[in-house]
């Protein structure tokens, strides 16, 4: 239907008499654009890498389009311009990714060491360069683990309900609200965790479990979504074969459906963990920061990597180096979880399922 509504081009086919730019023209224009940009900036003042690349890209787009317009006609010129812009959008998105990774690695390496990973911040003040993040790593792992313990059973059961039992308005409402729940701002989740515990236990109460509850609010919808997707991939023939053998429904779900989808479920849970392990705002509101190790989830403030990185950045000075090193540690953990998740799904994927 979309094709019908398009306006008929004036010349319905590209005129065969019109010329085509040779294949190497793209590269020639690209090189020309960059060289011209360099010379232009050299004349105007000092050429920087960013300036040359940026101006070169613009000059290339203009030059190639004009040349194409002259040689190949309007339609091919527009097509060429669109290709340039679409490719440019992709390359543009790589700038933050590459610069961020480079920056975190190079700046993070200055303080990153075994001692940094295994000491805490007791007795560190002023411009001292010592100190480490052992307490923050432990805090992050404990709180994330507690959040997973809360969200995984609830998420798993809800996903089972949606796939195996849910029909009618209740299931539709849950599906819809789970989607809406994915969009809850993390700071609101933090306020929720704070409000629940301070209403029950007094305004001064602080403990890791507050942060865990806040994070589980963010994690549960992600778990539900990914588990649901995995359960839907389980072929119906398996369920029917199980029913035909007289196996009750719940045993079918536990022994057949969940068993088949196990790898996918583990992958989904790990990706959900990777998503919330870097959350800062909810922990800033609920758990705060301390300088020494606290291994109890139910008593007192705890240190976590994201909050630690933020506070060190705020402090400035040598704190900036620690912030980068903590960021590097955090990214390494997240990437490790992502990698593990993908490897698990590749190794343990049910054979012949797709």
């Amino acid at each position, binding site marked *: 239907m979309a094709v019908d509504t398009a306006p008929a081009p004036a010349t319905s086919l590209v005129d065969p008499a019109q010329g085509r730019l040779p294949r190497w023209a793209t590269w020639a224009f690209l090189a020309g654009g960059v060289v011209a940009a360099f010379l232009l900036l050299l004349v105007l003042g000092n050429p920087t890498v960013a300036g040359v690349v940026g101006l070169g890209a613009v000059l290339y787009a203009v030059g190639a389009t004009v040349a194409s317009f002259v040689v190949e006609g309007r339609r091919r010129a527009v097509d060429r311009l669109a290709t340039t*812009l679409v490719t440019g959008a992709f390359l543009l998105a790589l700038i933050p990714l590459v610069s961020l990774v480079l920056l975190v690695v190079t700046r993070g390496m200055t303080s990153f060491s075994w001692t940094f990973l295994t000491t805490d911040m007791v007795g560190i003040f002023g411009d001292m360069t010592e100190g480490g993040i052992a307490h923050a790593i432990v805090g992050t792992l404990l709180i994330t683990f507690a959040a997973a313990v809360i969200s995984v059973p609830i998420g798993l059961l*809800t996903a089972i309900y949606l796939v195996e039992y849910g029909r009618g308005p209740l299931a539709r409402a849950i599906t819809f609200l789970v989607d809406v729940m994915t969009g809850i701002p993390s*700071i609101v989740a933090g306020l929720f965790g704070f409000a629940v515990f301070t209403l029950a236990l007094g305004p001064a109460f602080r403990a890791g479990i507050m942060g865990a509850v806040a994070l589980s609010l963010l994690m549960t919808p992600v778990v539900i979504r990914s588990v649901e997707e995995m359960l839907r991939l389980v072929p119906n023939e398996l369920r029917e074969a199980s*029913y035909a053998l007289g196996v009750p429904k719940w045993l079918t779900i536990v022994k057949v459906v969940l068993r088949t989808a196990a790898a996918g479920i583990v992958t989904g849970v790990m990706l959900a963990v990777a998503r919330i392990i870097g959350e800062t705002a909810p922990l800033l509101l609920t758990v705060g920061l301390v300088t020494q190790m606290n291994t109890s989830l139910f008593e007192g403030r705890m240190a976590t990597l994201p909050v630690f990185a933020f506070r060190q950045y705020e402090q400035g000075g040598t704190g900036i180096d620690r912030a980068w090193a903590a960021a590097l540690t955090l990214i390494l953990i997240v990437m490790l979880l992502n990698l593990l998740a993908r490897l698990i799904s590749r190794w343990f994927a049910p054979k012949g399922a797709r």
Partner: protein
Amino acid sequence: MALTTTPRRSGTSPDGEQVDAGAAVRAASTGRVGSRVFAGLSTGAGVLILLTLAAVAVFLVIRAWPALTASSEELGDISWFNGDSVAEYVGPLIFGTLLASVLALLIAVPVSVGIALFISHYAPRRLAQSLGYLIDLLAAIPSVVYGLWGALWLLGVVDPFFEWLSGALGFIPLFADYQAPAKNILSASIVLAVMILPIITAVSREVFLQTPRLHEEASLALGATRWEMVRQAVLPFGRSGVISASMLGLGRALGETMAVLMVISPGFLYSFHLLQPGQHQTIAANIASKFPEASGLSVSALIATGLALFVITFAVNFVARWIIARRAEFSGAN
């Protein structure tokens, strides 16, 4: 609903009730009890989700209530409070939140649609999947790292550009009065744009890939160039998908805390001076910066602003999901 399907299931199981052999009866009855317990558990979990969502609203309202009902003198005792009521206080914050998010959306949507098109229709087919994964990596980076990146790298990079913009177009109020560390709302929006790029790209890409092959081939067969094919077949098909993806991105940008907190220099004005620092602040960043030191009524006031943020994001996400759900029901692709 679940409870009505369960008995039917055990009813169709090989007639357990009529067989007298004890083992068969026991097997059937444990099956029935087990099924009922399991159905109850999973339904309970589903209902728990609904209750949690309601609880978020209820608890926020309870905690915000003292501030919502307090007199202007009581509120005036809070050192950082300006205005006579919570509504007056939150007004500039809502303005700043919306402005930052809309700017982020204006930057992110064209780029995201370009990336989605590149991955779905332009990149070599063998590379497409790994290129998509590369963009998804942006979503895995923690927000505090984006904050560091924005505050310690991006501000320096955009500085000459803003300088030029303010010099060349400074007569337009939008670009007037740039000051050197670029801790203004436009920088914050650029960081936000990078953060919401992956979700908009992912959803748009999925929709573009669903374009019926016949539409594309028909267009190409009529002699269309690749761009004409995209404009005639892919974009009309994906329009509603891109709209809902943008709404999801908007929801994400509205609630993002750390990037704004670490980049922007705060102010509480209704101002369109995008390049001037000290003009804007968002709700989320304001809560994060004031909450750790707050106590008593000021906590309530901050939670009241959080309630406003919750309502706004809930509405945006609600509409976005509604558009997606409606599309799934009526689109010819499914």
